[in-house]
């Protein structure tokens, strides 16, 4: 895989009042990477995402995406460049059917510009494109699921809907904030191939996860965070065997013991 950096974070720092939520975190994501970000609760993972995508204003530090400085850009501009994210707390447009949820991202300047999606110009077309994307992401086209109100969808489908919302933008990078959490084992099992497909399609992924087993299957690099700082970064195997990581993440050096009890 070519080493072409697509997203560079330099010394990102974020303080809330007196609390340092993020302390000089730097990392680089190459095109085609699947970067996993792990860490205990409150270690600053979601803040990292918020800072990258502009939803929270950084106290200091810079972010470069596709070679441009996006540190000061508003979230919609960043998404418009192709750096998309999912939300940990999913809030779809509840009053709309699932496929209508996708009309909104398809209406965005990026989706209209990158075209690719069939039609796009005339009004009704976005509905069909929406259903196409939903099928790609695992909504059965001929079932009634894509037509159901988003409010009535189960968590698994809502997570997919979040992903579909990103896909509608034809993104370069998708940041998935805990996309496996809250899902049953079988739902996760059906989700993993989806992630692998996205990776094969050339989309760079950043995944924030607590489900380490599934994450290590797809990720080629893992970054560990604790107390708002980057502990280390490396291949999944290297991270797994690192004592510092075990201590921070599991509170014990004996990873096997924790894994069996979990």
């Amino acid at each position: 895989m070519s080493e072409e950096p697509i997203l560079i974070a330099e010394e990102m720092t974020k303080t809330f009042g007196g609390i340092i939520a993020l302390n000089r975190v730097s990392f680089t994501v190459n095109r085609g990477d699947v970067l996993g970000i792990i860490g205990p609760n409150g270690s600053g993972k979601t803040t990292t995402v918020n800072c990258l995508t502009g939803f929270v204003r950084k106290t200091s530090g810079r972010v470069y995406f596709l070679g441009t400085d996006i540190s000061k850009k508003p979230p919609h501009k960043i998404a418009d460049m192709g750096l998309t994210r999912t939300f940990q707390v999913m809030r779809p447009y509840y009053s709309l059917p699932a496929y209508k949820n996708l009309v909104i991202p398809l209406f965005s300047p990026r989706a209209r510009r990158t075209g690719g999606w069939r039609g796009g110009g005339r009004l009704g077309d976005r509905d069909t494109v929406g259903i196409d994307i939903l099928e790609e992401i695992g909504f059965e086209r001929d079932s009634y699921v894509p037509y159901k109100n988003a409010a009535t969808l189960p968590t698994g489908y809502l997570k997919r809907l979040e992903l579909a919302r990103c896909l509608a933008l034809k993104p370069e990078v998708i940041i998935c904030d805990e996309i496996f959490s809250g899902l049953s084992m079988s739902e996760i099992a059906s989700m993993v191939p989806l992630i692998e497909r996205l990776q094969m399609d050339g989309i760079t992924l950043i995944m924030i996860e607590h489900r380490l087993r599934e994450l290590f299957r797809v990720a080629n690099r893992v970054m560990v965070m604790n107390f708002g700082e980057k502990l280390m970064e490396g291949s999944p195997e290297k991270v797994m065997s690192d004592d510092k990581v075990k201590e921070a993440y599991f509170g014990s050096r004996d990873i096997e013991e924790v894994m069996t009890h979990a």
Partner: protein
Amino acid sequence: MTEGMEQRRKERVDRGIKVRTDSLYALLSAGEIAYLALPRLVLILGLLLLPLVVPGMYWQRVITITCIYGLLAVSFDFLAHYVGLVSLGGAFFVGTGGYLAAIANTQMGLSPWLTVPSAALAGGVLCTLLLLPCLPLRGVYFAIISLMYPLFSARVIEALDILGGTDGIMGIDGFPNRIVEQYAPVVLLLLILFGLRRLVTTDFGLVVRGVKDNDQAIRASGINVTYFKAVAVFVSASMGCLGGACLVHIYMWSGISQFALDFSILPIAATVIGGSGTLVGPVLGCLILVPISEMLREFGTLRIVFYALILVAFIIFKSEGLMVWGRRKYHQFERWTRI
């Protein structure tokens, strides 16, 4: 759960005809077409014929005023329930539109045919520009600040003694004749009502409604939330300004009373009573409230007390409003079923 007590719940079922008329097949039978068209016809014909039925000039004037309040109420409803910006300062739009029309008429000598549309457009732009800095605010904060705008405008006009100061601008032309005066607000209201109903179901409308549901997700989709809010505010403000401009030509006078509370609170009350988020409901609410408030005119400020209390009662006990209730009765029947 006491033994032997029968547990029952209310069940709501769509009427057969509602289901049959959901799709294109509605066109197959006259009855079904009538089922679909009836409510709309009642509204359109009702509004058009009402001025012919009521006795005397006075009540015809009341209907005109009702339609103008209807515009304001629809404007409020659109902004509050489709965009999520609750504006307590509808009077700001009325005043802006009114003064603009007054200036265009008295200073530039334009006829009402030109002043009304140009005041609506220019007023919409002006209001949007002035409200632009507040658009990121939500909930209480937008409500508070929008309440401030009309008060602020009135105080500024008072303090600086501009635009005729407390006397207002006089000598404005009326509409060319009675029929125009009577029907301009009615027709405008109907056009805007059906236009907005169409607008909120287009893709553009979906995005605007998405802004209300979840603006974070809209941002994450690469859409500029402020832009869409601004466009929506423009639509809403134009409607308010349109109402204000009509009002100025009807009364042939423009003054700071157009920034008064009445224009803010009555449309809100009408929206709550008629049914929030239905667009038609607010018009219905105005049709009820404005005539009542006219009848209570001799009681002075008691009428404000009256519709403030109605508003509170509806917010608390019947927050869905008449329109939602009526629509449900029309489309569904209810029955008790045993559990």
